[in-house]
């Protein structure tokens, strides 16, 4: 008999990195790595589970912005070119390491991985990752839900209610466009919640969202079951809280499972370690050294003598870590079930980039976890929507404001490095909202200009820009991106106000920042 459910949520998001007017840029690698190192291995893992008739239900929260990028023809072409170069480098590495059995085995592993990735992407998915996601969803293996449209951090945008409506309503509309049906739940970007946001979610038809542990722990009134059962806001939208016990072992690359010394070292990469002339065609587009994904060593720590990666030992460690995780969750669920009047739900949300990209063995670990859960029979996997359907009697309470960022609140996105941006984001949203009210049925040119202005505003609202401004390596790019989008937004607003829309410039912008093709600025109203 089931003692509870485990809700694993993998959250995938990247900012809009399509640079149509330029040659390939390094930021596009963020997207390419997500496909090669996360989407392909995780979905391949699901194939294996389905083939072996292992029941599982996962939630994939994918930002509409990332969905749009995955569906983009230009980025697909560029990804394929990138993949071809990876295959070429892996073939060179296979030849180069033939004299060293330990390294050659790893080179073969990477070559096989890239061959397989290419076959999956090109032949099985026909270059359409979104269609693949849709197919897995239709087969019941995953439930895809959106994040806010461009992963805007909603509490920091709430000074302009129209901006919240746009982020939430566009998310709902984009999900319907790609998946042909409404999404049950919404992933709040960075788990960032404040009371009142549920009104916008209810209006868009979302039934649930997720919050950080403290969001439930400090909810009003006090939730009877803590984070192990949902609560429902006055709007009718339910909130699920993150289980703290299952977070750190997986999230922490310094103390958790990913820190194991037998796992592949993320930081040692041929892009940094081979002679420059040998790798320069495979590193960053501007020739700077950049990881290629081909790595040979296990985690021996900084300064230590590098040891070759041993795939068998790594696999054994992944299985041992899966045993440990599942045993702990089963004990936890059994203990909770004895003291609850409904089966507990243990919510485990993780950044999808952990699986395969940051933690190479992550998909292997997750596969082992899901197989052990299925074999154990007492703890089943489910989505939050499944839980609400099975247990519709829910305590009424409102979660407390919280995020899953450092210290549980907004500091990573609101500090000396990035606080200047909110003045401009709020002003642009208010100005655009006023224009939408002034021109609720504008002519075609006005409609296009205001819609493109909204596109630019949404792109400026992406939460990553504020976070990336806190890191030296990415600050310049983040500042420029948010500035560019805001300048474009305000210029279009000025042109509409003056009745002087520059159609040629507008057309160019529509081609450059081309997300959400069915967007309509009246979503602000």
């Amino acid at each position: 008999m089931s003692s509870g459910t485990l809700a694993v949520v993998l959250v995938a998001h990247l900012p809009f990195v399509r640079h149509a007017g330029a040659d390939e840029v390094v930021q596009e690698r963020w997207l390419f790595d997500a496909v090669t190192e996360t989407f392909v291995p995780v979905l391949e893992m699901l194939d294996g589970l389905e083939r072996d008739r292992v029941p599982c239900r996962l939630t994939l929260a994918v930002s509409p912005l990332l969905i749009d990028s995955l569906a983009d023809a230009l980025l697909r072409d560029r990804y394929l070119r990138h993949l071809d170069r990876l295959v070429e480098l892996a073939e060179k590495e296979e030849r180069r390491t033939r004299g060293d059995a330990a390294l050659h085995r790893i080179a073969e592993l990477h070559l096989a991985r890239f061959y397989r990735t290419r076959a999956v992407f090109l032949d099985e998915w026909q270059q359409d990752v979104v269609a693949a996601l849709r197919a897995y969803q239709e087969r019941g293996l995953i439930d895809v839900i959106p994040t806010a449209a461009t992963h805007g951090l909603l509490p920091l945008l709430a000074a302009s209610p129209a901006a919240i409506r746009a982020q939430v309503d566009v998310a709902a509309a984009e999900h319907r466009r790609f998946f042909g049906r409404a999404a049950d739940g919404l992933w709040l970007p960075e788990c960032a919640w404040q009371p009142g946001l549920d009104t916008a979610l209810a209006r868009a038809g979302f039934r649930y969202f997720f919050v950080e542990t403290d969001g439930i722990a400090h909810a009003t009134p006090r939730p009877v079951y803590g984070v192990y059962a949902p609560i429902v806001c006055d709007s009718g939208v339910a909130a699920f809280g993150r289980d703290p016990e299952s977070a750190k072992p997986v999230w922490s690359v310094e103390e958790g499972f990913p820190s194991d010394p037998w796992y592949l070292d993320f930081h040692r990469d041929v892009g940094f370690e081979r002679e420059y002339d040998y790798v320069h065609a495979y590193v960053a587009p501007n020739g700077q050294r950049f990881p290629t994904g081909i790595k040979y060593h296990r985690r021996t720590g900084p300064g230590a003598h590098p040891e070759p990666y041993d795939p068998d030992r790594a696999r054994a460690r992944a299985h041992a870590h899966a045993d440990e995780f599942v045993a702990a969750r089963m004990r936890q669920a059994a203990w909770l079930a004895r003291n609850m009047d409904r089966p507990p739900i243990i919510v485990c949300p993780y950044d999808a980039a952990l699986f395969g990209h940051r933690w190479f063995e992550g998909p292997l670990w997750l596969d082992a976890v899901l197989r052990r859960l299925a074999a154990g029979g007492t703890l089943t996997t489910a989505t939050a929507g499944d839980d609400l359907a099975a247990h519709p009697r829910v305590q009424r309470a409102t979660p407390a404001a919280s995020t899953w960022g450092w210290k549980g609140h907004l500091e990573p996105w609101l500090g000396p490095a990035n606080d200047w941006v909110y003045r401009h984001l709020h002003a642009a949203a208010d100005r655009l909202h006023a224009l939408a009210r002034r021109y609720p049925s504008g002519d075609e040119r006005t409609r296009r200009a205001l819609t493109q202005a909204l596109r630019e505003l949404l792109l400026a609202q992406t939460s990553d820009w504020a976070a990336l401004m806190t890191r030296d390596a990415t600050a310049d790019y983040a500042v420029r991106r948010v500035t560019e989008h805001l300048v474009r937004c305000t210029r279009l607003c000025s042109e509409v106000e003056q009745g002087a829309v520059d159609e040629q410039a507008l057309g160019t912008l529509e081609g450059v920042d081309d997300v959400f093709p069915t967007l309509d600025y009246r979503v602000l109203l």
Partner: protein
Amino acid sequence: MSIGAVIVAGWGLVGDWLGSAWCDVVRELRRHAEPFAGRLGLGGAGAAPPAPAAPARGLDQDVRDAKFLMPRRGPAAAASAPDDAPLARDGHAALPAAYGTDRVTLLARDPRCLFAYWEATAEGRRKAAAALGAEARAAQEVLRIHDVTFVATASGANGRHAVDVDVAGPVGSCYVAVPAAGGTYRAEIGLRTASGRFVAIAGSEAVATPPEQPAADTAVRWADLRTIDGGAGEPLRWSAGATGDGAGSPAGSNGATDQPSLPGR
């Protein structure tokens, strides 16, 4: 199992990380009734919030770093590609320095820290100065933070306490430390005379800082989600057939039952 038993057993066992005994409503009221400026000393512009007890990096930071890899600069690097061109940190200078609107906006960064930004136009300052008359000459521009916790009106004028932060310049921002988590605050930007007269140029909406403790309110009410219509892309509404009032209103109490009807074990 009675609801009391659920609370005692469920809360104590399910969430022992949450602790057990917490302040009650009276203690909350007393805490907010104290003059908060005198308790911890409200910070001025740029005042640092209380030192955090949290680790220096969040668990998510390493994954975030791994997602947003950037090239390593070195002697072998070729010329920068267009999108790697260095940009000065003041790159946002392309944005307006001011918007020509009197405004103050308050954001609750964490339980004990607010962030405020403001703009006071020349016209707004002139009007405020005119209202102050001769005293305006020596008036100081201040950001006034009102503690409006438990105050029903949106205006901060009848808030329990207020503290002023001296500011300079028509456009600015600052962090303000507040002593009590779970409070509600409102800001005004305005002029204050030596005698204490204050005329506002602009006011903010009220914002609430998150609580740091579990709620004192332990009332338990249940809702049956089957009484909610909508979903699948339609707005959620409590069913008109559900018990209680507010039929059709998402904020109504339909579908709620004060007495739990818990399934058997």
